[in-house]
């Protein structure tokens, strides 16, 4: 009986030690330390810098893409004619676009819908100006007619 009690005590110690060990390994996390204001500001600054450099990389990529796209099109006339041109002109080739310092011009060009491509539509040359003018003339005529009728009616009322 006494031996049984010892054995039970030993078993409890072993199991208890195992459980305690498990508790120690699982309950680890100490409460997070609060950053000092100076440290927080530094962290924010680092984050901002990282974001800035990411944005800069993206913009640079866009510019290169736009430049390469405009170079691939190679349809704009050279701004400064070369002496090699003949009277009827040398065909502009796709491999020799004029270098453009103004990248905004090429960006603007790529935005425009009315650029020539194989199979493109004719430019929209429709204008509402004649219709607006005609509407104006018709309205004036209508107003004058209304005035006349009104005068006639006034004269009838007076009589």
């Amino acid at each position: 009986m006494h031996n049984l009690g010892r054995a039970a005590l030993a078993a409890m110690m072993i199991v208890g030690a195992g459980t305690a060990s498990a508790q120690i390994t699982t309950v680890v996390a100490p409460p997070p330390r609060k950053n000092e204001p100076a440290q927080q500001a530094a962290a924010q600054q680092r984050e901002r810098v990282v974001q800035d450099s990411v944005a800069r990389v993206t913009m640079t990529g866009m510019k290169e893409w736009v430049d390469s796209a405009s170079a691939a099109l190679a349809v704009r006339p050279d701004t400064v004619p070369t002496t090699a041109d003949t009277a009827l002109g040398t065909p502009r080739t796709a491999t020799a676009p004029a270098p453009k310092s103004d990248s905004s011009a090429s960006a603007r060009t790529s935005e425009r819908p009315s650029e020539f491509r194989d199979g493109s539509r004719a430019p929209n040359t429709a204008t509402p100006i004649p219709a607006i003018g005609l509407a104006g003339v018709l309205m004036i005529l209508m107003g004058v007619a209304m005035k006349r009728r009104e005068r006639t009616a006034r004269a009838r009322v007076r009589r």
Partner: protein
Amino acid sequence: MIGRLTRQRLEARSAASTAVIVCGALLLIASATSVARGAIARDAARARWAELEAERAVAGAKLSTGGTRWSDARGTPVARMTIPRLGLDEVVVEGVGDDELRAGPGHMIGSVLPGDSGTSVISAHRDRHFHALGGIAMGDTVVTESMRGRVVWTVSRIRVVRAEDSALNARPTPTLMLTTCWPIRYVGPAPDRLIVEAVPK
């Protein structure tokens, strides 16, 4: 009582007729302003073209051999086009946006200049610069002058397409395409496009 009602009706009619006249006048003014702005822009384009020609003359060189600094910025003159039989004589500006088409026929960006290998597209409003284009006929002569030199063209094809049709095709050989709205005499946005094609003589 009846007299008062009648008077009120007459007053209302008078006010309505005045309002209609004022609105009509405003529309007319808007239309006239647009036309006037177009005329001013056209004069400016012609003046700039004259300057370019003068520079070229001073340089004592051909258009294509330097001396004159040509610009391909939107709205700047890039060519001069004449159709002698129709009495059409216009300075072509770069671009086919609203501002450019107000000043004159526009050279469609992305197409070559007249005289280069490929398709050169020039467009204009039917009620302004290309009004005479309604009278074009096969075999008519078109003359263009640009930094690529002077080219004489012969009209080889005339067709009318729907506005949404993909009608402008790139050609390997020098081709001039003149486009405007069709019908020429049409009130409101015209549904079709007139396309005149010409090849060098």
